[in-house]
């Protein structure tokens, strides 16, 4: 009941015209970045971080949440009409969605994706509303040792699970940790990795690193390839946007199952949206009364994964709001937004900034409605966006990237760093290093170091504190398991054929 009361207060704040306007802008921009290739929610939120100096925290986070949800909605459009997912989480949608579009049912594919996103987004937000306060109660028992171990687990999970190689994931993570330690050590005042440059004393800004790796790095990679000079062939928007009774009956169960996959997996470290969408797709394929339609345009194959994708977005917000631990690149950038407002994240957030948290949660419900209203009627606009020729699209993306970086202090040094990170992003993209561990490492390095120092101060320098406290030891144990699981599995798989011979 307490959660309901707080939520009602959140609604009264979220429904004020100013907050609604920021929510609307966030949903609109989010859908746009979801539709456009080369832009994503992490990059967009990073670009908008300079706004935190001018806009109140509540409005800003409502907009960020709108961008996050909106990007999840918008990704489906490119998958269905272009067969080019705007987001990695929409890859599965393209499998069946584009086939439906090719057979003249683009309208129904877009409709089931949008309505499924609304249903799953709302279910995910409901889960966030009622589970988050319970998790806060548990999290209040966490001390610095547990926090340090939790951050180690989050970092290891992101490095081990994302990408195709544990080795490359760990290299990306250590690079991120290294970059995160640039600047003055806040506890001792000593300079680290600054090369005597005064511009590096405050450390490297998340905006510069995120925008450089994602936007400039992607543009450099595509320019290197030289295959993106003309827009991809766009499917005609065919078929009615109204779903038939048969479409509804085949979609609704898939939406609910998708939400059930999306929320819990999204809340796990490195769970992300890719795994639940994949699981949802294969579950729908298994349970469908028309398995022969899969691969040719089965509506369940669009409904389930899109629902999973949106529910996972709500899931990702749970550890961020309750524990202060980001489990994705977007959440990591949002964490740095909390830092720039001087807001302490973690379980205390629900007591110290209760109004902000509940307004944010209420705005997620409202955002889902806005997105449903925005998506289908404005589909023509989103389709037109896809026709922007790549030279002008990427010129615009890089110009707005420079704006985002240059606006924070008019520093040409940071613009130079932006292109250095762009080159790093290009190398990572070309040689298959995952990008999220770099950002997570950058943001969590100073926080993890601080928690470790606090834990050691409390334990009077006893390193065993991390393994003698049961929860901390369990978290470190899971991290260790994740580290060794992949090599052990690969070794076992390599031995399998020999064993059968």
């Amino acid at each position, binding site marked *: 009941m307490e959660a309901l009361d707080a939520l009602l207060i959140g609604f009264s704040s979220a429904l004020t015209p100013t907050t609604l306007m920021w929510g609307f802008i966030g949903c609109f921009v989010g859908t746009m970045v979801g539709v456009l290739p080369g832009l994503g929610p992490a990059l967009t939120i990073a670009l908008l971080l300079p706004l935190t100096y001018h806009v109140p925290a509540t409005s800003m986070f409502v907009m960020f949440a709108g961008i996050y949800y909106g990007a999840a909605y918008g990704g489906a459009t490119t998958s269905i009409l272009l067969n080019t997912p705007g987001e990695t989480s929409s890859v599965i949608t393209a499998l069946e969605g584009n086939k439906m579009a090719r057979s003249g049912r683009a309208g129904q594919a877009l409709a089931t994706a949008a309505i499924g996103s609304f249903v799953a987004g709302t279910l995910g937000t409901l889960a966030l509303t009622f589970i988050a306060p319970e998790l806060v109660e548990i999290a209040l028992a966490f001390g610095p040792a547990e926090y340090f171990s939790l951050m180690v687990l989050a970092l290891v999970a992101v490095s081990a699970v994302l990408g195709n190689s544990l080795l490359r994931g760990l290299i990306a993570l250590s690079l991120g940790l*290294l970059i995160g*330690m640039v600047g003055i050590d806040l506890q001792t*005042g*000593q300079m680290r990795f600054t090369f005597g440059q005064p511009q590096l004393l405050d450390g490297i800004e998340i905006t510069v690193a995120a925008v450089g790796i994602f936007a400039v790095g992607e543009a450099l990679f595509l*320019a290197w390839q030289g295959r993106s*000079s003309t827009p991809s062939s766009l499917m005609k928007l065919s078929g009615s946007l109204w779903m038939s009774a048969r479409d509804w009956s085949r979609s609704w169960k898939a939406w609910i199952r998708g939400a059930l996959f999306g929320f819990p997996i999204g809340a796990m470290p490195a769970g992300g949206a890719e795994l639940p969408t994949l699981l949802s797709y294969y579950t729908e394929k298994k349970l469908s009364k028309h398995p022969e339609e899969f691969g040719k345009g089965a509506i369940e194959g669009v409904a389930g994964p899109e629902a999973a994708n949106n529910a996972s977005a709500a899931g990702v917000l749970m550890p961020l709001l309750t524990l202060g631990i980001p489990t994705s690149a977007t959440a990591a950038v949002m964490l740095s937004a909390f830092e720039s407002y001087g807001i302490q994240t973690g379980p205390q957030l629900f007591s110290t900034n209760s109004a902000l948290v509940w307004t944010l949660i209420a705005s997620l419900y409202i955002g889902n409605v806005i997105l449903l209203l925005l998506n289908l009627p404005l589909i023509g606009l989103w389709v037109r966006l896809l026709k922007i020729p790549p030279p002008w699209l990427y*010129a615009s993306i890089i110009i707005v990237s420079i704006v985002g970086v240059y*606006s924070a202090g008019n520093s040409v040094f940071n613009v130079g760093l932006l292109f250095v990170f762009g080159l790093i992003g290009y190398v990572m993209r070309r*040689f298959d290093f995952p990008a999220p561990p770099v950002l997570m490492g950058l943001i969590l390095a100073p926080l993890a170091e601080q928690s470790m120092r606090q834990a050691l101060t409390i334990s009077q320098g006893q390193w065993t504190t991390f393994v003698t406290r049961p929860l901390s030891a369990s978290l470190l144990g899971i991290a260790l398991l994740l580290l060794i699981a992949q090599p052990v599995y690969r070794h076992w798989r390599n031995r399998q054929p020999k064993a059968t011979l």
Partner: protein
Amino acid sequence: MTPSRVAVLLLAICAVAGWQVSVIPESAIQMAVGPDMVPAVVVLLMSIVSVFYAFSAFRGQQRDEASEEEHSALPGSQLRMATLLLGGVIFIVLVPVSGFVIPATLCGMCIARSFDAPLNLRSALICGSVALAFWVLFAKILLIGLGPASPFGL
């Protein structure tokens, strides 16, 4: 660029980072974890994984998109990348003296060129409009400091 060269680059980064750890001054504050301990552990971790990467790269086991036919680069890749980076250099050199819009326009034209758009008046007009639109949105509407739009201080 090949995976072997990436490995050499990583090892070079580790060496430079190791040197930087060695020059972190001792802290006068007595504490269990000094300012150089965590950086040293991170550099050690990075060195270990980089050595593993180097071994597998030299044995040809690491991935490069250039070796995959679908993703490999078309001729002129170095020039396209250099053109894009030139856009960044132009912006950095010109922005302190000529305001935001002109450097951003020239930068945009270089980026469009790297995606095979011609360097002509149309390109200048499109990139100029984009630069001006972003300047108006951020500097005038959102009141985020981008400096003057032009050398005349508009």
